[in-house]
């Protein structure tokens, strides 16, 4: 540009990239990935054969599943994203990270978070919200570390030597901003103690916030950062120009704007107002094109290099990753149709969908990144291309077995649940719909084992690679001129987006606006409508003992297998009882609607069986329901219930707006003991009522028996409001 006063060319800065932080994140990725996959395989074995729960409370399915999802998303994918972001951003911005200290705090802080998760989740310390299980002290740590990462990142942008920021960086910025917002809002809670808190929101409101978070964790943790990685690593590896700059711009903004609206597709047929559900559906459908925009821009960048795909394992991983991304983002909108969701929701089809995303799109992208970065950073060659190719094929067969078996299992079970004959259920016995799909659980287990075996090959390959690295490597110095101030001049013909690319602050603000619009429009109305319901309801809050039981239900992760949402579908009402209503869960901090029915829905289980049935069933489910795959919970019969904390719990609930009177709270302990003794006496003459009434099992029974339809929705005999 020539209207710039032509002073002397500026003197070059000489600088080095911080690759040691990238190496740290890479090693963490490799290690945690193994843990995540291993836990996944254990879970798969537990569903195929319940005895693998081993009667050990720490490793029952309900406690282990959150560990698996957290490890896969936040430890494996998380560390990989950070490795990629630190590696590519420094190069794209021609600068070292702003502060090595902040980078290190980010790294070690993140590992601390993961270790705390790995300890607390098996202990049953959980907030009970999917993908956001970690309790409040860890949540605060996550927020802190994320902010440190953000500060370091934005200051790095400030000291960059490349005037314009590349599309990968736009995606990184969207990730950093949105994840912070999602995490903070969804984690709002009031502590009861160091290891226990109650979500600020309840019922439908909590559900909406949770899935606004949950869906966008998929969007802004598993999609946008990976698109950023794709935009850097594919052109780097293949040495080809990115197919279309214009496509990058359009699909970036479309994706960021539209994704945030789609959360309610997790709540179809629930008690969420239908306008919000429909909005979730239509925005999911509109997500197809923006998602595919990323896929085709990646695939077309490979144009003219297809012969190399046959030879180079890294390229194979790229191609398969993008293809599976395309598949998952086609399947997603399909699943979001109300009529398809009625069949697929709560079944394994969803699990299949998730895993084509995470194993295929995320996993393969990470493998490509590792196979590319490790030799590069350690300045050596990959130990074996052949092993990497074997890894690719083993993992691909693993994914195919996984996805196919879950499709088959999901559709089979979905059809069995809904099957009607002469107005009666064709398969009234829930257990029958479970035993039917057990063989498919074995197929999935094999798929998972293959994927894990491939992973182990990769570890071996990378370890050998690192071991062969030359010692005493000198860091390479780079040089580039510092950025000069330029006045923006519209006459130069620069497009406005090109201008935006050199104003990252403004780009960031626009991203915030883009995600805020959908969030506010969707969440705000629900906050107000909920209040309205709260004033009208005749629903009684849980008794102190029931509340204690509910907390055990959350601790054991029962929601990972049981839903509490009877959908307005005939077969469902025949199977479980009256459909769920808004006020059923109005005092539920957090809500427990669940997303999967490995076991039957429990929203109407109260009163269906006698207390002794639940007692025997929790101790040994198969004694009451032959063929069941539910784990045994013998420790509930041994552990004493913590009665002491009940008053505190009721007080916190009071603060949250649950209509307990002060008297309720003061008498929490006596009331609970009295109710427990009543249940104890009711069990069986051979059981010592006094002794058993001290145990946790009694609270669980009390909670389960409280899960019922409201007697009548018209206030019947004057007892409209209690409390205030």
């Amino acid at each position, binding site marked *: 540009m020539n209207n710039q006063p032509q002073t002397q060319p500026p003197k070059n800065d000489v600088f080095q990239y911080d690759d040691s932080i990238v190496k740290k994140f890479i090693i963490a990725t490799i290690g945690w990935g193994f843990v995540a996959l291993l836990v996944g395989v254990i879970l798969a074995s537990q569903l195929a054969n319940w005895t693998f729960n081993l009667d050990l409370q720490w490793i029952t399915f309900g406690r282990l599943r959150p560990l698996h999802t957290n490890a896969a998303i936040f430890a494996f994918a998380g560390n990989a994203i950070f490795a990629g972001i630190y590696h*590519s951003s420094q190069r794209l911005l021609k600068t070292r990270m702003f502060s090595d200290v902040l980078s290190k705090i980010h790294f070690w802080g993140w590992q601390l978070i993961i270790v705390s998760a790995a300890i607390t989740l098996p202990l049953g310390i959980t907030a009970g919200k999917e993908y956001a299980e970690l309790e409040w002290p860890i949540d605060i740590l996550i927020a802190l570390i994320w902010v440190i990462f953000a500060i370091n990142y934005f200051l790095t942008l400030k000291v960059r030597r490349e005037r314009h920021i590349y599309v990968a960086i736009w995606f990184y910025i969207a990730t950093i901003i949105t994840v912070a917002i999602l995490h903070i809002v969804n984690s709002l809670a009031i502590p009861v103690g160091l290891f226990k808190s109650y979500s600020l929101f309840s019922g439908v409101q909590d559900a909406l916030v949770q899935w606004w978070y949950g869906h966008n964790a998929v969007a802004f943790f598993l999609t946008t950062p990976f698109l950023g990685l794709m935009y850097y690593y594919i052109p780097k590896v293949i040495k080809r120009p990115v197919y279309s700059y214009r496509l990058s711009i359009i699909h970036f903004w479309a994706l960021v704007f539209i994704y945030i609206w789609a959360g309610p597709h997790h709540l179809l047929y629930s008690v969420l107002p239908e306008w919000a559900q429909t909005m979730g559906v239509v925005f999911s459908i509109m997500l197809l094109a923006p998602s595919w925009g990323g896929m085709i821009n990646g695939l077309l960048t490979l144009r003219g290099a297809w012969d190399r795909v046959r030879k180079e394992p890294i390229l194979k991983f790229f191609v398969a990753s993008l293809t599976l991304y395309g598949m998952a983002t086609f399947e997603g909108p399909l699943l979001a149709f109300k009529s398809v969701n009625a069949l697929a929701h709560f079944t394994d089809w969803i699990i299949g969908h998730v895993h084509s995303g995470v194993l295929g799109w995320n996993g393969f992208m990470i493998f490509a990144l590792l196979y590319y970065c490790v030799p590069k950073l350690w300045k050596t060659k990959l130990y074996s291309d052949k092993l990497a190719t074997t890894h690719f094929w083993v993992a691909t067969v693993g994914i195919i077995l996984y996805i196919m078996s879950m499709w088959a299992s999901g559709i089979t079970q979905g059809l069995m649940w809904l099957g009607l004959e002469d*107005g009666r259920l064709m398969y009234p016995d829930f257990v029958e719909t479970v035993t039917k799909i057990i063989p498919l659980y074995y197929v999935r287990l094999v798929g998972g084992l293959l994927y894990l075996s491939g992973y182990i090959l990769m570890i071996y390959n990378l370890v050998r690679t690192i071991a062969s690295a030359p010692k005493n490597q000198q860091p390479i110095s780079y040089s580039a001129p510092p950025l000069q101030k330029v006045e923006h001049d519209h006459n130069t013909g620069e497009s406005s987006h090109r201008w935006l690319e050199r104003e990252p602050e403004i780009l960031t603000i626009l991203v915030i606006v883009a995600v805020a619009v959908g969030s506010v429009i969707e969440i705000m109305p629900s906050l107000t409508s909920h209040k309205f319901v709260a004033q009208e309801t005749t629903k009684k809050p849980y008794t102190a003992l029931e509340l204690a039981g509910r907390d055990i239900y959350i601790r054991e992760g029962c929601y990972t297998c049981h839903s509490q949402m009877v959908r307005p579908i005939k077969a469902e009402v025949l199977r479980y009882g009256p459909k769920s209503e808004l006020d059923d869960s109005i005092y539920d901090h957090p809500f427990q609607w669940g997303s999967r029915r490995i076991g039957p829905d429990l929203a109407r289980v109260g009163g269906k069986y*006698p207390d002794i049935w639940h007692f025997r069933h929790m101790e040994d489910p198969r004694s009451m329901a032959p063929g069941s795959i539910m784990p045994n919970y013998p420790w509930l019969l041994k552990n004493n219930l913590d009665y002491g904390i009940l008053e505190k719990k009721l007080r916190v609930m009071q603060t949250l707006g649950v209509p307990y009177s002060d008297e309720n709270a003061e008498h929490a302990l006596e009331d609970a003991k009295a109710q427990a003794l009543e249940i104890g006496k009711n069990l069986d003459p051979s059981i010592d009522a006094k002794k058993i009434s001290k145990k946790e099992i009694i609270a669980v029974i009390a909670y389960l028996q409280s899960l019922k339809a409201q007697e009548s929705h018209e206030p019947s005999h004057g007892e409209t409001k209690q409390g205030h």
Partner: protein
Amino acid sequence: MNDNQSNNSNANAKKDIEQNKKAKDSSSIILEDEKDIVLDHNYDGIKELDNPLPKWWVNMFYLTAIFAVVYTGYYHFSSGHLIEDSFQKSMIVEIKEDSDSSTAMASVGFSEEHASIDEGASLYTSRCAACHGQKAEGIIGPNLTDSYWLNGDGTNDSIYNVIKVGIPEKGMISWEKLLNPSQISSLVLYIQSIKGTAPANGKSPQGTLFE
């Protein structure tokens, strides 16, 4: 457009010598037909092409947007398609059917026609033994091998009825929705067949004696 060009080429020119070689290696391979559409962007050697948006992709985007409007219209701006509406409709049919079938069922009652003791025995083991014991000696539920009955009088019709409607408040669930009439009849046959077997550890008699 041009200020970054000077900037980038500047940066490229000034790279360290060892880097220079690398940078060349990693610069993009441009195909013949792409020469005219290479943008002057250069990020760590990455170039971008100025290809137009694929037509089919743009059309797909428009189509999904149009579809979104139609879909919303179908559910919210034309009557009778809301989830609640279709649910209510399906339940009305249900009630009609139900009244048909319940009169039909009442007239069915106990019938030996399709029933068999063997079927009854296996159903008993899988569904009833949990509460009544493997040998019907009684655990949570009463002993079913004696001649004492808490409910009804021990005739086929009476046992059929107890199993069908249950005694929910006492912990015996209704099996009407889980078993069909011939299965319930098989159970009745089985229960009658084990009368007087006096299994070990039998629960002591409850209810009234009917011979």
